[in-house]
């Protein structure tokens, strides 16, 4: 007798994603999320599709696709999106940008506000929370003017599963390896072997939301931000989706608001809406006044 696990594995082994299945899925996923998978990602996509076919106990790509497309609750569509988006990052990744934030950008924003005003920061994608919490940690540790303003951090992701992980704020050794020992000790509690939970103060200081940048009905509510962090996301998008994202950030930002992109990304190649600001430690894009 085969165990249930063995039976599932045997079914998965027989499943095949054909070239036309891949094309069909790729077109659908692009329309839905703006994320386009190149042929080089074929193995990655096939493996996750087969995982979802097996998990839903459908018998073929065709049957699964139909089930997923027309399921009234939309739960499987979300599960598929979650499976296809990669979530891997760590605290203080590309730290020079956080240094630029506290040494230049925040000071410039503060100069245009009155004491007591709110400064709003949007971090997208949240992934598992390392980036928005890094922003919070950096502000607490290295921005002397923090006490004069109320800083709101909102962080969003298309993947609903990661939001729960973000809210729990539990990280492994690798995630926190870039943090100075003093910061780790001050803001984290070790809750097991190689497991660290970020303090309740930090957890309450970030609001996590689910958003799909390709859905105008979802992005419309994001307004009045002073800073957007969107690092290493646009590289997964095609030209049209990148352009759409640049538009979403433009509408989300206040005049003179700033956008941080990943080191390999360039807004100048995406949109002419922003001007380039070169600070000593990083290049940032700014919405004109």
């Amino acid at each position, binding site marked *: 007798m085969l165990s249930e696990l063995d039976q599932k594995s045997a079914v998965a082994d027989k499943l095949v994603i054909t070239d036309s299945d891949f094309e069909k899925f790729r077109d659908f996923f692009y329309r839905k999320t703006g994320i386009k998978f190149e042929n080089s990602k074929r193995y990655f996509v096939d493996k996750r599709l087969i995982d979802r076919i097996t998990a839903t106990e459908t018998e073929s790509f065709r049957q699964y696709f139909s089930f997923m497309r027309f399921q009234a609750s939309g739960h499987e569509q979300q599960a598929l999106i979650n499976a296809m988006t990669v979530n891997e990052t760590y605290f203080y990744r590309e730290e020079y940008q956080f240094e630029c934030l506290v040494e230049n950008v925040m000071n410039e924003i503060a100069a245009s506000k009155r004491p007591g005003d709110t400064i709003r920061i949007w971090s997208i994608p949240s992934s598992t929370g390392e980036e928005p919490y890094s922003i919070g940690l950096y502000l607490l540790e290295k921005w002397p003017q923090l006490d004069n303003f109320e800083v709101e951090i909102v962080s969003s992701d298309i993947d609903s599963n990661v939001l*729960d992980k973000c809210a729990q704020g539990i990280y492994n050794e690798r995630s926190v390896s870039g943090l100075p020992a003093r910061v780790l000790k001050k803001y984290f509690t070790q809750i097991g072997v190689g497991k660290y939970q970020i303090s309740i103060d930090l957890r309450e*200081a970030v*609001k996590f939301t689910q958003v*799909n940048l390709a859905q105008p*009905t979802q992005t419309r509510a994001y307004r009045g931000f002073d800073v957007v962090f969107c690092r290493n996301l646009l590289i997964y998008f095609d030209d049209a989706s990148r352009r759409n994202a640049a538009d979403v950030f433009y*509408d989300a930002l206040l005049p003179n608001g700033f956008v941080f992109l990943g080191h390999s990304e360039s807004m100048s190649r995406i949109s002419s809406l922003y001007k380039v600001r070169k600070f000593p430690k990083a290049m940032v894009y700014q919405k004109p006044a």
Partner: protein
Amino acid sequence: MGLRKTSTNIALPDENVENENREVPRDFTQLKFQILSLEPSERRWAARDLGNHPEGVPILLETLETETVVPVLDAIFTSLQKHPTHECVNGLIRFLSSEDASVRNNAIEVLQSMPNALETHILSLLNHPDSDVRIFAIDILQQLVHQNAPEWLKSVLLDETHVNVVATAVDRIVEIGDSSILPTLERVAQRFAQHDYIQFAVNTAIERIKEDTYA
């Protein structure tokens, strides 16, 4: 002051977003009026929302003729990009002759993203009476994801007589050509034997393609 605290730190999108309250209804009829607003931010939002209506393409194209505010222009092009149709391609082609470099470059970028709809128009663009438009057509080909792009560029190398257009084609073929294009490049060098720049450009292109091919 400090970091603002939140009591519920996870928020999912409102499942009833289609019924959200808006200051102005976002139906097609209202958007047609909104895009004529004197307020640029209202025009930008109308342009963005018209992107959800295929019947909005002619209005967006018409607005391009008169709109001068960059964020509004940007929203129009982003919305047009959602409709890779012959109507849209036809409408955008006329902006390749625009005096405004930003409009022209945006038109090129959007056309590059519509390979299938553009297919039947590319030869007439490459034979356009205006040599500048022919150069922009070559710029479109450089990024166009279409299997015929190298062949179309080859036809320019073989038939084009304007030296600036040929020079552009020689420059662009380096990125998308392979060793099969080398005899064509040698013919270009013969056809324009009296033009030092073409000789230089052809030699450079041949060297680079050989480097890529035999690396």
